[in-house]
């Protein structure tokens, strides 16, 4: 099954992380991505730029309403994602538990709907 793992964390915490700390974190993510790729589970994954760069679009009565910032102001922000193809939810949970951000943020697991 395909799952999108949405990585939520407090982006201010990331901004305040030392260069060495960031380097260590990137290495951890890199190892995880390589492992998933080797198992043929990796369909995609990226880090997102901070929410200060986010733009939200709505269309009301045919009119575009474009606003600065993320859809919702929350304590934790969507900071990246993995798109995986694994056997079942337990496998997705095992993977999510190893994502570094799960330790101080959270990972939301969303199954993808099978296309028609």
């Amino acid at each position, binding site marked *: *099954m395909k*799952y999108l793992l949405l990585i939520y964390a407090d982006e201010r915490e990331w901004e305040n992380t030392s260069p060495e700390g960031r380097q260590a974190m990137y290495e951890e993510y890199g190892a995880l991505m390589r492992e998933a790729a080797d198992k043929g589970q990796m369909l995609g994954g990226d880090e997102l730029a901070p929410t200060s760069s986010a733009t939200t679009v709505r269309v009301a009565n045919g009119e575009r309403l474009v606003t600065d910032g993320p859809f919702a102001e929350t304590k934790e922000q969507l900071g990246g994602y993995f798109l995986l193809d694994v*056997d*079942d*939810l*337990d496998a*997705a*949970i*095992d993977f999510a538990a190893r994502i570094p951000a799960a330790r101080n943020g959270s990972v939301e*697991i969303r*199954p993808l709907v099978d296309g028609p």
Partner: protein
Amino acid sequence: MTSVDAVVDRVFRDETGKGVAALIRVTGDFTLAEEAWQDACEQALRTWPARGVPDNPAAWLFRTARNRAIDRLRRDQVGREKTAAAARIAALEAMGDDMHEIQDDRLRLLCTCCHPALSLDARVALTLRTVAGLTTRQIARAFLVPEPTLAQRLSRAKRKIREAGIPFRVPPRETLPERLDGVRAVLYLVFNEGYASTEGDLLRSELCDEAIRLARLLDTLVPNEPETAGLLALMLLQHARRDARTDDAGDLVLLEDQDRSRWDHAMIDEGLALLEERAPAGPYRVQAAIAACHAAAPRAEDTDWPQIASLYGRLLELQPSPVVALNRAVAVAMADGPDAGLRLLEPLAEDLDRYHLYHAARADLLRRGGRSEAADAYRRALDLVTNDAERRYLRARLASLPA
């Protein structure tokens, strides 16, 4: 109940979990498995009274349910689902007829029904429906929710299992212990809902019976788990007091006032025997040991309160929570006097301000210490209580205070 009804009832209860679990493993479909099993039970109710109960009723039910599942698949299949249905039909046909030869899948079923990705409400409902074989109506009644609400809860849970890809399997060794903890938590929740109902009547004994049955099943499926034995012992020791816990008017009778000859001593003996084996003390075992202290006292005044207080201290280390601390305070008060208990209650005031038993316990200790603040504490407990029997008890206590 006629003899046929009694047989039917017993066979349904005993075989449902196993039959449904096997059908789910083969079809991967909770709803289909349950509906096919339901069909078979209905057919049994129609035909057995007239034709007599078959020699092997379990095998009859299983064979019928399997055939009903095949019928349903043949009838419902359309378009691109045809291939999937054909594969399921072939798998069902390959299962054979003999229920005693099919693999026991109930542990998978329990682990799936108690999966942490389901809401706690859903886990409870699904376990009672699918593993214990209670009807939607029975579960709805036991939890005092309208039947359509419960039916919706069940169908949402089944949809989540399907859509989120919750696997139907026993988790691997690394995660099995934590998953078994989750299963035990669901069973204990079912028990507690029966033991101290949050609303209405104090006792819904059938939920306790069901929880005990499921704990026995878990103990059979995964033997030598000290915490499962501990949980079973805890339930037995508590449930043994069921007949003495309320009086004829349905009012709560406190442990110290209970007629101990009305306790179920066979059940107590079974509970005590489960604790005899040496094992590391997990939270359920420690709680069972506390219940055992009560069960072992011939009269209330014989209760070994220092031992209970020390066990609560141990439990507090294993499971730090304000409610455990509250129980410990009460036990310490019994061992060392109300003032010692009140001192331990003080730091809990903020955490437990909305918990009626905190105020009830505090009120009892203040009353025993002859303190006038007792009345206010009883009133606060009355503001928060939802259970009728407990409410009557608190009112009686309040009324008994010296003016």
